């Protein structure tokens, strides 16, 4: 069953049309990488998928929920969709553990004890089992990003969205975060990743999508996509990314 179905999404900010009819289907367990130049609309598209941006036209269904503008329905959808941002966005006044426990307790109504155990489990999954009581500002960028991933995981989402989650990190720290994501992929998590890590996309994503000027310019199974790009635009983009 398809976990994400987006049909013909259009979105403008004022006079600027950012998404000009984007369609995407993601099956359960699939990992999709989204690449493209700055400003091509990758983040906007991702944010539309969990309703952080409203769409002007098109249809979205995620984890069996139709996209809605009604707050209560939107929250139902968001319970099943995790998103991780480039800037981590942890809650600075809460410890790593409390960051993770907040939504399970307040949204799902999980008892604190159960939430605490779940938080510990999620922290171990990202390799931070011993940092439950650390405040975000005591953690490195890579550790903070892994806590952010754990925070999303604790809601047991049906799909995880990643928006350039390693772009703010040094190369060494990038590796530890990518390793966590790769592990999730192996565990069968459905994921959409906006990324500049071409090697990672090629290795981990089943399918890669190249966005340009608000449309999907080229897409395909990652192996072929990277080894035999068809359009000159993608060829040029891949050349510029490899450097």
């Amino acid at each position: 069953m398809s976990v994400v179905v987006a049909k013909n999404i259009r979105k403008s900010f004022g006079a600027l049309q950012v998404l000009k009819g984007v369609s995407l289907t993601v099956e359960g367990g699939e990992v999709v990488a989204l690449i493209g130049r700055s400003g091509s609309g990758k983040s906007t598209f991702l944010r539309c998928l969990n309703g952080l941006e409203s769409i002007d036209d098109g249809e979205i269904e995620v984890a069996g929920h139709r996209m809605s503008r009604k707050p209560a329905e939107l929250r139902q959808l968001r319970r099943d969709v995790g998103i991780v941002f480039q800037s981590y966005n942890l809650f600075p006044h809460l410890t790593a553990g409390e960051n993770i426990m907040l939504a399970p307790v307040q949204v799902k109504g999980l008892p604190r004890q159960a939430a605490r155990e779940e938080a510990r489990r999620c922290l171990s999954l990202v390799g931070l089992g011993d940092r439950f009581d650390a405040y975000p500002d005591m953690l490195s960028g890579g550790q903070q990003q892994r806590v952010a991933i754990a925070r999303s995981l604790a809601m047991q989402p049906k799909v995880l969205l990643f928006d350039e989650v390693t772009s703010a990190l040094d190369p060494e720290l990038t590796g530890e975060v990518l390793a966590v994501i790769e592990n999730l992929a192996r565990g069968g998590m459905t994921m959409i990743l906006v990324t500049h890590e071409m090697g990672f996309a090629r290795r981990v994503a089943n399918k890669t999508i190249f966005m340009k000027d608000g449309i999907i310019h080229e897409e395909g199974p990652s192996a072929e996509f990277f080894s035999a790009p068809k359009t000159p635009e993608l060829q040029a983009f891949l050349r510029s990314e490899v450097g």
Partner: protein
Amino acid sequence: MRTFGTPEFLFIVYALRWTLTLTVIAFVGGGLMGILLALLRIARSRALRGLTTFYMQLVQGLPLLVLLFLCYYAPSLFGVEIAALTAAAIALTVNSSAFLGAIWESALRAIPRAQWESADALALTPWKTLRFVIAPQAIRLAMPSTVGFLVQIIKQTSLASIIGFIEITRAGQLVSNATFEPLKAFLSVAALYFAVCFPLTQLSLWLERRTARRGART
């Protein structure tokens, strides 16, 4: 004629409870209203935001003394006598609400949008986001200025002396009139204000340093 002695000094000290009573009323009442105002200022509804702005600007634009006179004399237009304490309490509460509301509004606005967004994405309701994510950070941020404004309120209560309410400034005046020793009387008054305000000013400074340190760490 009396000389300035222990009984006179104690008379002023006893009046301190009225200074403190007024302060507590203004701080608690103004604080509760201030919370409401701050929340209305960040509400979605334009009309609510506009009305709130109007109220806050109106109050902030009035000298407190004028507000106090209005609260004291306006009821008599309707043939209602109002106690000096009541008039002073209302004026100080209204005044504090506008200033505390402004302090807290800016603290709420200082929390990055990304914090709201993360909480949204975790399916928290707006109220829970406010309660568990935004407010705790905003409160920490607003602490120094809030304590600082509390000190202002304490000093503002001295205006109530003008409508005859006997807090420490008025008590000092009375003692001064009775003893013809204004210097001793008002030095005592000053010492009392200082004794109450100094620890709070120190607290405010400490809170500010702590906030700055936290800011530097992140």
